[in-house]
């Protein structure tokens, strides 16, 4: 076949585009159908959380964290309270720890469900999105009952949680879990074996462990390469050492592995919640903390396993009730950096499959 003359063209994807999951822009250089270069442009959602935090007392920072990864706000809550507690050596009552684990893991399920639905919608499958949202909605309703909000919970406090579970809430959750597991099996059967889907995600966007580590990736984006790295196991925080669960890892580091790990992790989260519901004791939900929280002067970094990866908070304190400097390690921000190198040399049709599988939330990317 004769060589077809192609011309380089700049294609602007976003910032307003349904498949960018928020206000995210990529300037793609294409030669015919092939991507030769990609430049992500971010910052459209930048609110300066880190600067604002310098003017806020520690408990006041918690609602700002809700608005970073707004799909997994419970885990964000956990990140900030965990960091302050580790810096101050606050003891958290048992019941509060269990409540945190329960809502955190359920939030991970909700976040993963949204990923599964939205990713399939990106790839042209409409109904899984509706199925996934049905389950996610049930979880959001439960969070509404326990915290008073569907998305921005502001539920955790330094030293515990704000409210105990309402009467019957824990039993309702216990009754719901088998149903969720059954539904997950059905969704999995519906989607994962589908050949059209597989041909779009298998072997696409591949990278190995070494690259992932060099890029500082965490969460599923690292585990998809077969590297077992989960902060719940590798740097245990809270009471995760009491639960029996597995860390699923991928094999090929492609989009399919990243997709499928979300399915597998939902199962593990359900397992953790089940065990936590069995073990949860009665007792206080808020520890003894001073009215005005002052973090001793020094520098601290602590991280939790967020829905997207390592979610850490670096605090520089000068002994006052407000942080001198607060830096948030946002997994979405770090994970997104690998995107240009994944896109280079790919067919334009794979663009959405690769971007979607990175699983970003722009509220967290831009902070």
């Amino acid at each position: 076949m004769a060589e077809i003359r192609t011309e380089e063209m700049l294609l602007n994807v976003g910032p307003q585009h349904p498949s960018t999951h928020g206000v995210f822009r990529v300037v793609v250089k294409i030669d015919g159908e092939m991507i030769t270069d990609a430049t992500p442009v971010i910052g459209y959602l930048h609110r300066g959380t880190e600067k604002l935090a310098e003017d806020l007392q520690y408990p006041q920072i918690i609602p700002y964290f809700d608005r970073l990864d707004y799909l997994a706000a419970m885990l964000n809550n956990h990140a900030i309270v965990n960091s302050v507690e580790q810096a101050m050596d606050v003891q958290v009552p048992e019941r509060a720890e269990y409540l945190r684990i329960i809502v955190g893991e359920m939030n991970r399920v909700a976040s993963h469900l949204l990923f599964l639905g939205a990713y399939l919608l990106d790839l042209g499958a409409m109904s899984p999105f509706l199925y996934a949202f049905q389950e996610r909605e049930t979880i959001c309703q439960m969070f509404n009952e326990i915290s008073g909000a569907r998305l921005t919970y502001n539920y955790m406090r330094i030293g515990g949680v704000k409210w105990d579970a309402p009467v019957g809430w824990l039993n309702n959750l216990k009754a719901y879990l088998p149903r969720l597991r059954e539904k997950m099996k059905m969704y999995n059967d519906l989607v994962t074996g589908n050949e059209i889907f597989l041909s779009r995600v298998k072997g696409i966007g591949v990278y190995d462990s070494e690259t992932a580590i060099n890029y500082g990736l965490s969460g599923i984006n690292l585990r998809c390469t077969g590297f077992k790295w989960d902060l719940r196991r590798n740097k245990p925080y809270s009471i995760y050492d009491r639960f029996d669960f597995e860390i699923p890892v991928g094999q090929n580091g492609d989009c399919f592995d990243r997709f499928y790990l979300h399915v597998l992790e939902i199962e593990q989260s359900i397992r953790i919640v089940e065990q936590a519901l069995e073990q949860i004791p009665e007792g206080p939900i808020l520890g003894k903390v001073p009215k005005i929280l002052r973090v001793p002067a020094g520098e601290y970094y602590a991280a939790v396993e967020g829905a997207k990866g390592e979610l850490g908070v670096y605090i520089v304190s000068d002994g006052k009730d407000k942080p001198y400097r607060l830096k948030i390690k946002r997994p979405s921000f770090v994970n997104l950096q690998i995107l240009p190198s994944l896109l280079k040399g790919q067919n334009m049709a794979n663009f959405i499959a690769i971007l979607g599988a990175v699983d970003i939330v722009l509220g967290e990317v831009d902070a």
Partner: protein
Amino acid sequence: MTDENKNVDLTNNQPTSEEADPKKQASEKPVSPAASEQTPVVKPAAAKPTVEKPAAAKEAAPQKPDPKKEAAQKELDRFRQQIVAKFGESVLEEAVLAKYQPTFVIKREDWRNVIEYLRFDESLLFDYPEVMAGTDYPDKGYIEVVLYLYSMKHGYFVTLKTRAPRDNAEVPSVTPIYGGVNWEEREIYDLLGVTFTDHPDLRRIMMPEDYEGYPLRKDFSVWKE
């Protein structure tokens, strides 16, 4: 090697659990007995006497040495020895233990060389850039760049810092070593005005390209028009 003495010098101004500070009497109720065991050692500013310190736990703490702290101190000494053996005494401005984290302040000119060594030396292999941040200290006249590294193979962690004067904030970029700090450095450049030399793509990342000023500097007011 005379490192051991040197190290004592560097750390002896840091309060340890053994020296419970009488100034730090609890003004409010104690947090927990465990609170007194770990005292932060890095001090960006002088601690105020108002810092809470449970009085009740004060006597209990001095008896038991913290094994975690001792292990961290051992690691600190070892990293220190290796860095000094490779680059000489002058590259290190400080070597302290921040809680359990070995922390080194490295001279700005050697920032990249030291990190390159830590990254590729077989006995260290700090391959995972955990977090990078910058902090402005106007009263001390410098901006501090912090990099937390982790060694996936050996399980070590270390904090590295370097300081750049505020009006000529230039730090060698480590993006050629870690792909993962590319955007972090751009963010520090954007929000704190630190120029990373040899960075492949140093542009503003959060703020608009024509924006003037550095929002995370302490003299930048959120409230101005």
